[in-house]
């Protein structure tokens, strides 16, 4: 049985929930059950359905969008957090069984840009639309669009790259990070896959593109007068390809096509991108065996399939390897997985008034940023280090500065505090009744809440026993006493004392569960 063969084992809630955690920000058991009721293929195909583009963000002062304005905002820094909120809100759809949001974030991590540098909220917005529009489409076409995307042109100085003053920034990252990947330096300036001279040649191919000073912010322009019309010679790594120099209005687009054709003819490109997807969706560790049985065949499919993204994702998400128990729960949640997943889990409602909604969204996006994942502002062009930096990878999300921030969030969700929005406080008693058929049994309640909250890595019996003794039965209470207390509460739910007796203990249970290491795995 091959690692990429379609998964043929038992398809149950555990496997479906694994798929859901990795492919979406949805975190409810109800939705996992919905996926479990389908066949694996049906479930994956549902996730891989293209969604229409979302409407543009609105200015809460005018209720109009500003993103189509033909001139930049004078107070643009006020609008950048709104684009972030606009995107973040799309992750907060508790029922959205679709891969688009996870995948858009994956490509943001891949084609990273920083709003601080892009320096124009309109470009920031259209860049995100480029990411989501192409997220499961054709990767080569994706790279073509990204190359001439205003946000990217601005971020990597593509808009300053001219025939008289070439700027190699984008040409370098295009090869090193976005497509073929940098290999070992086998000779001075020769990185196996490309050479320094290839960077210079590619930069010349890419001369002449401009971001509009005034005009349609969704489109870049091409200034033929700034384009290098000479032939461009590439190294033996690219088979000594020569890209014919052109002039005129279509020179830039034509040469870009030639450049991408050359890069995508290399085997290394498919492998590099497949590894990136693997680290995003499966696990950071790529052993030789994984390389041989997963990466190589998937890369072959990618290249033979003309770099269509969706079929490759379909193969991966349906594979035996993906559902291997070794890969379930083996990923530490990123801050966005954690914060968005948390909000989605409890189905908190965002404020209806736009200005208030932005305030709430910004509050939570800022929390994720403090935990080191600031959307639209990753640390560098290489994206978040958790997805590429050896040997720690996802572990970099967790440290003594960020862990207390997670605790602060989960504690506040149970007991309130600070600026934490009141509408986002969990009603623990209601939640207990939702997930447990018989909450008057302390043991069953602990089990059901634990299994609802820690789905990726089930708690051991030791932990369940500890929780029982130290939360619901804290202070030496017996199970019979809990049953009586619950009964008293149900008999008279408005009696404050009866309610508080059970509520305090359920709160303690939730606070405790949120702090378990298991709650941070996915």
């Amino acid at each position, binding site marked *: 049985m091959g690692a990429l063969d379609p998964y043929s084992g038992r398809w149950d809630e555990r496997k479906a929930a694994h798929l859901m955690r990795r492919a979406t920000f949805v975190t409810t058991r109800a939705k996992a059950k919905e996926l479990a009721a389908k066949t694996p293929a049906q479930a994956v195909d549902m996730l891989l359905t293209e969604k229409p583009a979302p409407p543009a963000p609105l200015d809460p002062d005018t209720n109009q969008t500003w993103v189509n304005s033909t001139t930049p905002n004078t*107070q643009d*820094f*006020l609008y950048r957090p709104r684009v972030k909120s606009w995107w973040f809100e799309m992750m907060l759809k508790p029922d959205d069984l679709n891969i688009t949001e996870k995948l858009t974030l994956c490509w943001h991590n891949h084609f990273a840009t*920083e*709003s*601080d*540098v892009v*320096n124009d909220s309109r470009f920031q917005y259209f860049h995100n639309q480029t990411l989501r529009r192409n997220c499961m489409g054709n990767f080569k076409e994706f790279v073509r669009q990204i190359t001439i995307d205003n946000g990217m042109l601005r971020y990597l100085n593509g808009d300053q790259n001219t025939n008289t003053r070439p700027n190699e920034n984008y040409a370098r990252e295009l090869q090193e990070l976005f497509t073929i990947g940098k290999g070992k330096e086998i000779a001075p300036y020769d990185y196996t896959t490309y050479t320094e001279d290839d960077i210079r040649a590619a930069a010349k191919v890419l001369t002449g593109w401009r971001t509009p000073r005034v005009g349609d912010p969704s489109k870049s322009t091409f200034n033929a007068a700034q384009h290098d019309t000479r032939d461009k010679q590439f190294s033996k790594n690219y088979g000594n390809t020569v890209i014919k120099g052109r002039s005129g209005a279509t020179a830039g687009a034509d040469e870009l096509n030639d450049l991408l054709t050359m890069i995508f003819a290399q085997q290394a490109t498919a492998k590099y991108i497949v590894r990136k997807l693997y680290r995003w969706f499966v*696990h950071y*560790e790529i052993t030789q065996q994984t390389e041989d049985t997963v990466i190589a065949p998937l890369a072959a499919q990618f290249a033979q399939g003309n770099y269509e993204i969706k079929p490759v994702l379909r193969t991966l998400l349906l594979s035996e390897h993906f559902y291997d*128990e*070794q*890969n*379930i*729960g*083996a*990923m*530490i949640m990123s801050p966005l997985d954690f914060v968005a997943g948390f909000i989605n889990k409890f189905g908190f409602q965002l404020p209806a008034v736009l200005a208030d909604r932005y305030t709430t969204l910004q509050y939570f996006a*800022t929390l994720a940023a*403090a935990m*080191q994942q*600031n959307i639209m*502002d990753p*640390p560098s062009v290489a994206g978040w*280090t958790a997805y590429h930096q050896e040997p*720690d990878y*996802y*572990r970099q999300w*967790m*440290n*003594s*500065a*960020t*862990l*207390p*921030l997670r*605790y*602060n969030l989960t*504690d506040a969700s149970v007991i309130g505090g*600070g*600026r934490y929005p009141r509408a986002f406080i969990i009603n623990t008693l209601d939640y207990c009744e939702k997930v447990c058929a018989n909450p008057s049994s302390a043991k069953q309640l602990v089990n059901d809440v634990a299994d609802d909250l820690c789905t*990726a*890595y089930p708690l*051991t019996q*030791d*932990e369940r026993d*500890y929780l029982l003794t*130290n939360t619901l039965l804290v202070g030496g209470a017996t199970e019979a006493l809990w049953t009586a207390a619950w009964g008293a509460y149900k008999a008279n739910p408005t009696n404050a004392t009866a309610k508080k007796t059970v509520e305090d203990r359920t709160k*303690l249970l939730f*606070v*405790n569960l949120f*702090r*378990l*290491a*298991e709650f*941070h*795995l996915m």
Partner: protein
Amino acid sequence: MKRRSFLKTAAPVLATPLLMNGLKLNALSRSPVFDELASALAVTDRYLVLIQLNGGNDGINTVIPLDQLSVYNQVRSRIAIPESKALKISDASALHPAMTGIQTMFKDGMATLIQGVTYPNPNQSHFRSTDIWMTGSDSNQYIGSGWAGRYLTTEYPNYPKGYPNAQYPDPPAIQIGAVMPLALMGPSQNMGLAIQDPNTFYTTMNAIAQGNYPAPPATKPGNELAFIRQVQGESKQYSKTIKDAYDKATNKVTYPTAQQNSLAVQMATVARLIAGGLKTRIYVVQIGGFDTHALQVDDADTTTGAHATLLGRVSESVALFYQDLKQLGVQDKVLSMTFSEFGRRVEANGSAGTDHGTAAPMFVFGTQVNPGIIGVNPSLTDLDNQNLKMQHDYRSVYFSVLKQWFGADSAALRTAVFRDFPELPIIKTSSTSVSENDAFATAAALSNYPNPVANGGTTIRYTLPDAAEVNIRIMDANGRMITTLAGGYQQAGTQQLHFDANGLANGMYIIEVRAGLRRAATTMVVER
């Protein structure tokens, strides 16, 4: 100045050894050579408290320009502070009447103020200008990390990986409050912990007793689980070292309650942590409410009102803090500095308030400051678009404080504020000394020859005033230890030993000799 060129020019000077910690430094003027040398030795037992005044403090009513009273009274007729009530700190300047505590600190030589601080092309948005002050950026530059955080990365390389450890048991920075300020953000990592108070943080990490469970199996998910548990353990360690320090010291003065003065309560916490021995380098405390667009004074008495209340709280907090630190015996180790995102408009508005402005004074407190006033009262008539003109770039203040207080070298300074800024005499030059007793008695106490060292080695010579247990260490320019040389108990008099420098790369090194409580250091250059 590039380090290489400094070494070349400095080498002959070094033939006369400098005492890093002795009174001898008093005799030296501040010179580049001295500064580079002083900064080569990390000064680690020093702490910086940043006091953020949120909202944009009205600098003109904080430091009243007595030399321009007619203009002042005219453009601020409804909110002007009467000259008779203002607290003079010089012939030309007086503090707001609510700032009695800070006035006393000026009298005691424990306060300095820097006039007219802002940056070119000031931004008048709270959000944006706060970011600029926090990040140390230019007005048109967007940066995701903070000046203090970047500086701390030079002292705590690779933080948080491998921390806490025996050498650095404590967090680099602490924000007293809920949300980490951008100032403490390193290029890729928060350099601090945000804690409401040590007990709450300790509670956050420990209040919920968590069980000890058997190690998870060595599977892929099990390994990640084990890692998270390890981080939980380390965080608990920080929470414990912080709480231990907090519990070790008690405040020696009575601070007001949080309802009366929230800033004072934050500073009381900082005092306890420092006195309790926490080695955390930078603290941030905050007080809000300075956005005084309306009714910043009471009409009946302009010395009272919202702004007076705020300045009174700041003054009370700082004064109590230093009284406390003095009684706790750590006042010489703590420097405090105020900042606010901007000052306010020269002319008052129609609501007995002031609108967003630009330049404003910054205060620096501590026993080691050069007391007085840096700069002059800003002109109320020579304006830039109705606003005060800049006298000092805010990064000059950061630059000077990091260099003079923490002994930051030029690489660390550039990491923090990106380029060189004019240095302001904020800290007394003599303050690099610990105390006379800590140093060797004579300037000839320590030397090495040859210096620079080419091939072979150098002879280290030192003179002990009395018998002592001797420790000799060779450190690199960043203060990291390279090796320890044989010492032991030695008699008074001149001692010498040979050091083989063949294993060392080219560069500057520090030779440090400790003899009992005394300490001396000199630099050695390896150049082949």
